């Protein structure tokens, strides 16, 4: 039901890189799971309100006052590549040179 192309498309969306063996396995496993899940697609649930959350959530407002947040040295302590008080990451674009 889920083919190779769909697996590769979804993996791209999810920022996962799958090797050839993983693509094959994933296609089979996802098809099996979705085959089970498909039973709910046939249920007539027209007009039923969807539940996204069981607690009745209300907008939470508070006074506009400063709270403590993590000092930058603490926030950066676990970073793979801290750099001059910031998080360093590779360029979004591959090197042009």
């Amino acid at each position, binding site marked *: 039901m889920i083919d190779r192309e*769909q697996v590769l498309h979804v993996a791209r969306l999810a*920022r996962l890189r799958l090797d050839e063996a993983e693509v094959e396995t994933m296609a089979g496993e996802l098809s099996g799971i979705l085959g*089970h899940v498909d039973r*709910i*697609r046939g249920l007539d649930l027209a007009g*039923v309100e969807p539940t996204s959350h*069981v607690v009745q959530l209300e907008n939470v407002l508070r006074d506009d006052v400063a709270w*403590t947040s993590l000092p930058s040295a603490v*926030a950066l302590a*676990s970073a793979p590549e801290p750099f001059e008080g910031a998080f360093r990451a590779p360029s979004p674009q591959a090197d042009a040179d």
Partner: protein
Amino acid sequence: MADLLDLSVAAAAAKIAAGEVSAAEYGAAWQAAAAADDLNAYLWTADEGSFAEPDWNGEGESAPAGAGEATPYGSNGPAPADSGPLAGVPIAIKDIFTTQGIPTTAGSKILEGYRPPYTASAVRKLTAAGAQVLGKTNMDEFAMGSSNENSAYGPVRNPWDRGRVPGGSSGGSAAAVAGGLAPAALGTDTGGSIRQPASLCGIVGLKPTYGAISRFGMIAFASSLDQCGPLTRDVTDAALLLGVLEGKDPLDSTSVGLDGGISMPTLESLAGLRFGVPAEIADAALDPGVRAVFEATIARIEELGGAVAEVHLPHAEHGISAYYVIAPAEASSNLARYDGVRYGRRAGGDGDLVEMYEATRSEGFGAEVKRRIMLGTYALSSGYYDAYYGQAQKVRTRIAGDFDAAFEDVDLVVTPTSPSVAFGLGEKTADPLAMYLNDFFTVPMSLAGIPAISIPAGLAAPEGAADGAPRLPVGFQIAAPAFAEQKLLEAAHALEGALGFAAAAGDAAPWKGGAGG
């Protein structure tokens, strides 16, 4: 020393408070027990020490309005050692809770070596009540699993039979308590991750109402379902821990707490309580040994004066389908944060940003986590959203409605916790769907957000086992309407007393050192 470790948490806390037991001696005895872990239940124990860095203690911080003394981050210094309901009691913490300066991995390679800068609210509640962190327990990676075989740090062994799984995802917490390596443990339950391992390990596991306990500092899997709760040897200890843990937290706007708190359960008779047995259980896939224990437990309820009636949960059979759309969908979004930029592992060489993301996530996540991210991303993707995610949310409404209707006729709904006793290591790893069906009886309560407890109800031989094979624990699940935890605990306490599981298990119970070892 052995008799110190035989005490329940409530009994130990009372003896420490009365000066009959030394907190130092009691704590040292448990540290020694935890350090001798031979079940792979712990990923870190207190004797390994914590780290000085990051040593930020929150100096100069300001608290949010309404937080009182409970500031968001910062100092987790020693709590008052001789006061508080848990004074002197060490507790094992599932490795999904952040603990300042103590490694926190959520069972994943992507967080290997991560030392959080702050501690989860639930853990702070325990330490503020006098408890100590005894260790961090092994778990399925990001709480995704029902056998603990998805941990990047190796599977946990079931203390009743080391060739079998302890259940999951709170497998390390359950094994630690059942195996005599911790007096009690903290776990999390998204679709059964406290109740199922409690069932497979012969202990008590409580999933409170969604919102009863703060999720702040609890590493997110599926945010609309995740809830933390205790794994304990008995119902009284579960009540004691819940009483400490519950409460509204300004740092988790979905937390609501429990009105009126929790008192120690005392009920011994079930007279006046109505128990609903879902008619659908008759046709459910269930091992014969588990069914026999379930039916015997229903008979005990009637002997104790409880009324038993049939109820109908017609949509519960679709719980697994709805759950395995909703939970992966939320997970695919929550786990987007593991991108190799701010914390955790980074992989990849000289490539661009997207290559770094993909390399980091592909090397850092295990097979089950990738599967769920893929499943969730697919269910949320253009063209499939309504058919899968939208439909699953409507099924969720129907399942909650089924429970509402049942609770008009009965006080509590009862089911087996798990369709089988503990299965063998490797037995279900090749078939994800077979693994997911372990959650058949626990997922509906999670989707409805209602509280449920698993108590050990008896022993049964595994299906197909040879005559004379050792018997394994079978859990009995009781569910209550939202926020009816007190009623749930009272009923569980009365039933626990009548079942006398610990006495029935006798020398086979691993916490007496009788099994496996």
